């Protein structure tokens, strides 16, 4: 789960990483009140789960509360790479002398957390890595050893920070960021830029934070951060129903069981010349109720012209799936053509159930490839 800047900063603050004081606002009036409370110049920042908001006009300096209200007016509703701005973070403006970069990520390849630090912050880190790789200090942490102060020393000296006061503050932040990363079960915790003010104060001016979904059960505070209004409405509905669903932009609805087979089903529809409308994984169980829920989600997308139902029964039983399909057709009054392919556990029984009921919009095909072709043809 990706967090907004203000949510990540809330976690930073909890772990003692210095951030500017700020307030959340969803209306221009709230932005004015926030600026009044904070006093002095503020920065009005769009809260979106995508990069490039500065260039898109989503971050603006405001001199006084009236100005903050005006800037908020400009930014709310702005479309930044497909994300419409609904929330603003209003924070005390900072003077910037230097911009650094600090992050810790979950390095899947090395199977260790990876620190990255450079004094060339404020730009995309990929640019630094490409243009001046020596300026980027990379250091893995042994997960059993955990954070030790030498790690911060290697980063700070390695990147050439020579001011002792800065060194001390950054080293402190490095340790706290590691704790924040591990104790929040993060996959990414990034501070870009990590600024030094003209007075020599080091603080996090932005945050990028991703948390492992599998660990949310033990972070109820972070789980509550989830913003259902920001998600695609269909994806939010799917989440409500407990269905694994990703919206794509074609017209062939897709339902498979298991992540790999569902992904492969999407690919095979493309190979057959079609445009998939979604990725949808029925999961391991595949009860009749689950089938009804999944079909309800898929058919809510008005673009869907046909549905390809691809099941390879393992734990999932094909007879159960067949009953779910018939139930869904009745309960949801579905008229969309549905192409079904059943193999594996109880497949014969499943095919028999469908053949007996024989609803007019149901087509049973013997193989995955045949079924994909049929679904593509029906969507035309």
């Amino acid at each position, binding site marked *: 789960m990706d967090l907004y800047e203000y949510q990540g900063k809330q976690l930073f603050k909890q772990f003692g990483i210095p951030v500017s004081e700020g307030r959340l606002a969803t209306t221009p009036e709230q932005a004015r009140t926030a600026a009044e409370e904070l006093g002095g110049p503020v920065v009005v920042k769009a809260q979106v789960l995508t990069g490039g908001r500065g260039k898109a006009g989503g971050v603006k300096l405001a001199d006084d509360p009236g100005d903050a209200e005006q800037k908020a007016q400009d930014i709310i509703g702005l479309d930044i790479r497909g994300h419409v701005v609904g929330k603003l973070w209003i924070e005390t403006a900072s003077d910037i002398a230097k911009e650094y970069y600090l992050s810790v990520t*979950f390095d*899947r*390849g090395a*199977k*260790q*957390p990876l620190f990255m630090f450079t004094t060339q912050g404020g730009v995309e880190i*990929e640019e630094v890595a490409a243009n001046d790789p020596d300026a980027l200090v990379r250091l893995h942490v*042994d*997960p*059993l050893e955990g954070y030790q102060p030498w790690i911060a020393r290697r980063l700070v000296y390695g990147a050439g920070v020579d001011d002792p006061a800065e060194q001390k503050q950054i080293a402190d932040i490095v340790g706290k960021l590691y704790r924040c990363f*591990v104790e929040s*079960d993060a*996959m990414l915790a990034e501070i870009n830029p990590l600024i030094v003010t003209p007075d020599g104060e080091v603080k996090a001016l932005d945050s990028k934070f991703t948390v*492992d*979904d*599998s*660990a949310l*059960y*033990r972070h109820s505070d972070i789980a509550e951060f989830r913003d259902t209004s920001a998600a695609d409405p269909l994806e939010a509905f799917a989440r409500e129903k407990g269905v*694994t669903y*990703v919206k*794509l932009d074609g017209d062939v609805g897709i339902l*498979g*069981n*298991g*992540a*790999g*087979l*569902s*992904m*492969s089903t*999407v*690919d*095979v*529809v*493309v*190979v057959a010349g079609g445009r*998939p409308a979604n*990725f949808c*994984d029925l999961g*391991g169980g595949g009860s009749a109720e689950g089938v009804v829920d999944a079909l309800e989600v898929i058919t809510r997308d008005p673009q869907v012209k046909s549905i390809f139902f691809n099941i*390879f*029964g*393992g*734990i*999932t039983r094909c007879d159960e799936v067949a009953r779910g399909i018939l139930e869904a057709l009745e309960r949801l009054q579905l008229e969309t053509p549905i192409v079904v392919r059943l*193999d*594996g*556990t109880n497949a014969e029984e499943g095919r028999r159930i469908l053949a007996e009921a024989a609803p007019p919009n149901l087509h049973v095909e013997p*193989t*995955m*490839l045949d079924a994909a072709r049929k679904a593509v043809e029906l969507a035309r």
Partner: protein
Amino acid sequence: MAIIVDNETKLVVQGLTGSEGRFHGLRNRSYGTNVVAGVTPGKGGQDVDGIPVYNTVADAVREAGANTSLIFVPARFAPDAIYEAVDAGIRTVICITEHVPAHEMLRVYTYVRPKGVTLIGPNCPGVLSPGKSNVGIIPAEVFQPGSIGLVSRSGTLTYQIGHEVAQRGLGNSTIVGIGGDPVVGSGFIDILEKFEADPETKYVVLVGEIGGDEEEKAARWVSEHMSKPVFSYIAGFSAPPGKTMGHAGAIISGSSGTAQAKKEALEAVGIRVGTTPTEVAELVAAAAAV
């Protein structure tokens, strides 16, 4: 021979008294797997359809001679279950449980790795050596004994490919589902190494998907160390960046982890990649017919 599980396997099921553990434990036994014990703390002395249940894995090793463990406990107890099995001297641990936090697995992996224990999963369908032993949730009736080793990050997709291979009259030495999480106990290379050393395996099919760079690393390893022909299938060509496709590990982040990049890396070392599960089955069938 075969790899990881075979006629020598003496299985303990951690979580045998739970509904999943019971269902699959008994299914594995009826396939012919030697299930010698179950472990559920507090239920020592009971039995599940004649299989003795112990309080600890150490008891199961001492009393019943268990050498392989199958884990079905809920996610929050899974790291503890893996540590317990490894510390009790179990040499092969297969963890089916999904949604184990990635940071927990990082520590488990770092602890287990130097001990030389084979850890498969978590979030995997298990390991099947057709005709010998089935440990996990793979529907064994789809597969038949043969010379093709199959290694995959996915469950049902593996069944699909196994089914297509079987329809062409071919069989498998061992099918290994390594799991779809960002950190799994064994990667492609660990399994390829075992297939290369296994006299029963003549061909290998590697089934990958988007996310991470395990397929790219496997391609390099194959070109340097593998004498047996390898075929591949990659799922997720149409996946959009930044969206998790069902498996926690199946995500394209930035420009890395795409199916196209994996396909190119595999083809660059001479591994043939099928566009559909049907095509990869045809490729391996054609090679086996020669």
